[in-house]
């Protein structure tokens, strides 16, 4: 019953969407306008997709196992929260969410202050995207497929996926990924109508920051989940699916900055337009890589080459037309695309080039193994070493440009003030670095450079803040850049100074390595709602500090699966992290993994600062408009 309603809403949404496209095109070529009608149709599409989404949530909430998606991904004993989050934890449901966000952005955009012609052409392009994905959903991945006879019980959800962070990070990522669709459509409309101007940049900037902030939150939450739940002892693994989200993030960060340059200097519109197209097409590429089963990772969805082929074809068609419009309507800047080298604009562009370089590195690292495997049947694995070697040195240069960019003017160059700033910042940075390395008692050149230049950025931001007469001026940028400085600093320290101990241990035994002492006190058994748990109690001593950690193994009953729950003690200077290895028992000993990870907390704090900067910009923009 719910299935029938759900299916009907999707089909009605498709028909309405088709009608909208048809009616708009007809009027467009007759040079008439029917904007009011398009506006209503656009709302109705959103309403019907929303209805389908609610019906799907409902099917999951009441465990309607006659629905194939519910049957395969849910279970009656699962807590309600996970039943509901399970609805987007699978391919079909997540596609409904994907389309819903496309439609919501389209509807929200109809409220923007953009001139009607431009606005409704944007909505038209957005509805073409909705059309492609609705067809895909209804014909290849229908979330309301019925299974007969109705099974008595569902197949459950992977217990590793039963985690609050995991449940909420995909919607954030989606708002980010899909949010770029509206900028993409807006860019195409702007190009087509030759209205890619300063005003375009101004009106696009709010949407760019919204999508960018959500994407950053999504990536951040995913990373926190990987750290606390996966038990791999890190926060970023260069997992292909993580990379698939990092690529649009890099493109959109470049877009965010180049759009500011276009807005302030009326230059580089073509570059901004290209980035707008690139950001969304790389988002789509990420979706394709995850959905087609090409990538093998913790995120792997059911692999189905037919679905993959459809998404691939759609991406190619969308990209072709987008780039075609770009080529034919190449935007010309009213000003010549020349900048004084020592100006804020050119520094932003230099950092844009770095972003694109990082993007290429990540993309090659993700796709090259697939390429080799498919064409030459060779297996290679691209690991952190590749990324560190290629990214770290350039990151250092990026930090320098990032520190000085905001201190320079847009149009004129004051040599003396630059030299003064360099000397001032360098001096303060050198003093801080010496103090830090004195405390660290560990030295390597790359670590020193990483620490030096991240502090350089932090100090440059602080100086910039103090120079302002009003602190709140440029607050968003300063907070985000400050956060980024701390992030790079923490990552360098974390990467170089983390300690790891892997040992077998039995109850009563104490293990000592350097300053760290691990004592295995006892084992307890306990019973959770849908799992049994064996908890190990350990006493950890690090110098004068002593505390207990209690990692555990959980055996979930439905489906039967054992997971390792880490136990983490966070302090301001670092995390102590203890996990029991799954299924590695040597007689009466168990294998444990212990990590000391410096400045972990600061990685999360710095990501929050970057996001906070984005939020400030969103609310400021709203007030301005």
């Amino acid at each position: 019953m719910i299935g029938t309603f759900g299916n009907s809403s999707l089909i009605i949404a498709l028909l309405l969407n088709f009608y909208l496209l048809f009616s708009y095109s007809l009027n467009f070529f007759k040079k008439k306008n029917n904007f009011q009608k398009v506006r209503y149709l656009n709302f109705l599409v959103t309403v019907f997709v929303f209805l389908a989404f609610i019906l799907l949530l409902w099917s999951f909430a009441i465990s309607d196992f006659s629905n194939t998606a519910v049957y395969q991904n849910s279970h009656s004993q699962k807590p309600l929260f996970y039943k509901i989050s399970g609805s987007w934890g699978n391919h079909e449901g997540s596609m409904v969410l994907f389309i819903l966000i496309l439609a919501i952005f389209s509807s929200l955009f109809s409220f923007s202050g953009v001139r009607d012609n431009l606005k409704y052409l944007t909505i038209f392009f957005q509805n073409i995207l909705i059309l492609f994905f609705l067809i895909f959903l209804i014909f290849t991945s229908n979330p309301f497929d019925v299974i007969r006879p109705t099974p008595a019980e569902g197949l459950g959800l992977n217990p590793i996926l039963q985690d609050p962070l995991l449940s909420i990070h995909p919607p954030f990522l989606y708002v980010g990924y899909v949010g770029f669709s509206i900028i993409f459509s807006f860019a195409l409309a702007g190009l087509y109508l030759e209205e890619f101007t300063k005003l375009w940049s101004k009106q696009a900037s709010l949407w760019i920051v919204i999508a960018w902030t959500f994407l950053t939150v999504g990536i951040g939450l995913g990373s926190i989940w990987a750290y606390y739940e996966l038990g791999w002892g890190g926060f970023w693994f260069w997992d292909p699916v993580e990379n698939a989200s990092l690529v649009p993030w890099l493109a959109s960060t470049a877009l965010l900055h180049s759009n500011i340059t276009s807005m302030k200097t009326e230059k580089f519109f073509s570059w901004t337009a290209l980035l707008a197209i690139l950001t969304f097409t790389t988002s789509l590429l990420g979706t394709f890589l995850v959905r087609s089963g090409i990538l093998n990772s913790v995120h792997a969805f059911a692999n189905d080459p037919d679905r993959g082929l459809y998404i691939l074809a759609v991406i190619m068609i969308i990209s072709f037309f987008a780039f075609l419009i770009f080529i034919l309507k190449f935007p010309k800047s009213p000003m010549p695309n020349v900048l004084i080298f020592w100006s804020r604009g050119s520094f932003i562009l230099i950092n844009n080039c770095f972003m694109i370089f990082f993007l290429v590195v990540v993309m090659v690292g993700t796709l090259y193994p697939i390429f080799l495997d498919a064409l030459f049947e060779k297996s290679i694995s691209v690991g952190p070493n590749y990324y560190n070697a290629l990214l770290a040195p350039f990151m250092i240069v990026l930090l320098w440009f990032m520190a000085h960019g905001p201190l320079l003017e847009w149009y004129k160059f004051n040599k003396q003030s630059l030299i003064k700033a360099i000397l001032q910042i360098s001096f303060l940075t050198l003093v801080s670095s010496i103090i830090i390395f004195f405390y660290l008692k560990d030295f390597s050149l790359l670590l020193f450079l990483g620490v030096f230049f991240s502090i350089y950025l932090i100090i440059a931001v602080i100086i910039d803040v103090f120079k302002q007469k009003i602190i709140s001026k440029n607050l968003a940028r300063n907070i985000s850049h400050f956060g980024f400085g701390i992030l790079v600093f923490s990552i360098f320290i974390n990467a170089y100074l983390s300690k790891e101990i892997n040992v077998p241990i039995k109850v009563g035994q104490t293990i000592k390595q350097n300053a760290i002492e691990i004592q295995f006190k006892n084992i307890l058994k306990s019973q959770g709602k849908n799992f049994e748990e064996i908890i190990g109690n350990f006493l950890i001593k690090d110098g004068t500090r002593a505390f207990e950690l209690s990692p555990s193994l959980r055996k979930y009953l439905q489906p039967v699966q054992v997971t390792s729950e880490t136990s983490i003690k966070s302090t301001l200077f670092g995390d102590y992290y203890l996990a029991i290895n799954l299924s590695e028992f040597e007689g009466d000993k168990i294998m444990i993994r212990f990590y000391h990870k410096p400045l972990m907390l600061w990685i999360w704090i710095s990501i929050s600062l970057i996001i906070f900067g984005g939020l400030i910009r969103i609310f400021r923009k709203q007030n301005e408009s």
Partner: protein
Amino acid sequence: MSHKIRIIILSILLILIFLFFYKVLLSEKTYQPRSMIGKSVPEFSMENFKDINRRITNQDFSTKEIVVLNFWASWCVPCRIEHPMLNELKKKYKLFLVGINYKDNASNAKKFLNELGDPFDAIGSDSKGEVAIHFGAYGIPETYVIKKNKIVFRHIGPLNQDVVKAIVALK
């Protein structure tokens, strides 16, 4: 550069990208058939269905002359159809059978075996479908024959008498 040339370059580029991903999608490496033939058994470690205290790994069968490995699940209808053939492989031809219970509910799986018979010498439970990915399983049911730790035969879909004959001929 004229528009025409740019459009031609764009088209060629996109076609190349399409062909590349198309090839990847349809290639054997996307966990699809044939590629595993002639290769060593992938490493795996699974929960043991019959004995919770031990795990099943690929090492357990590495010394066996010939092993028939079958992916199945209680919710899979074709698995019911092929089950008598598995019983036959065990009883009549005395082959060593390993079942991999794919994304299944343990109690349903037990009911299934009680009802239709248990031909398996060992059963591992692949609750997340990871082992199936390592084997490149296309779907279930699916059957592999492993000879001296090398995969020599694969059949996608339910077994039939011809396939049973082909498997027996490998002995």
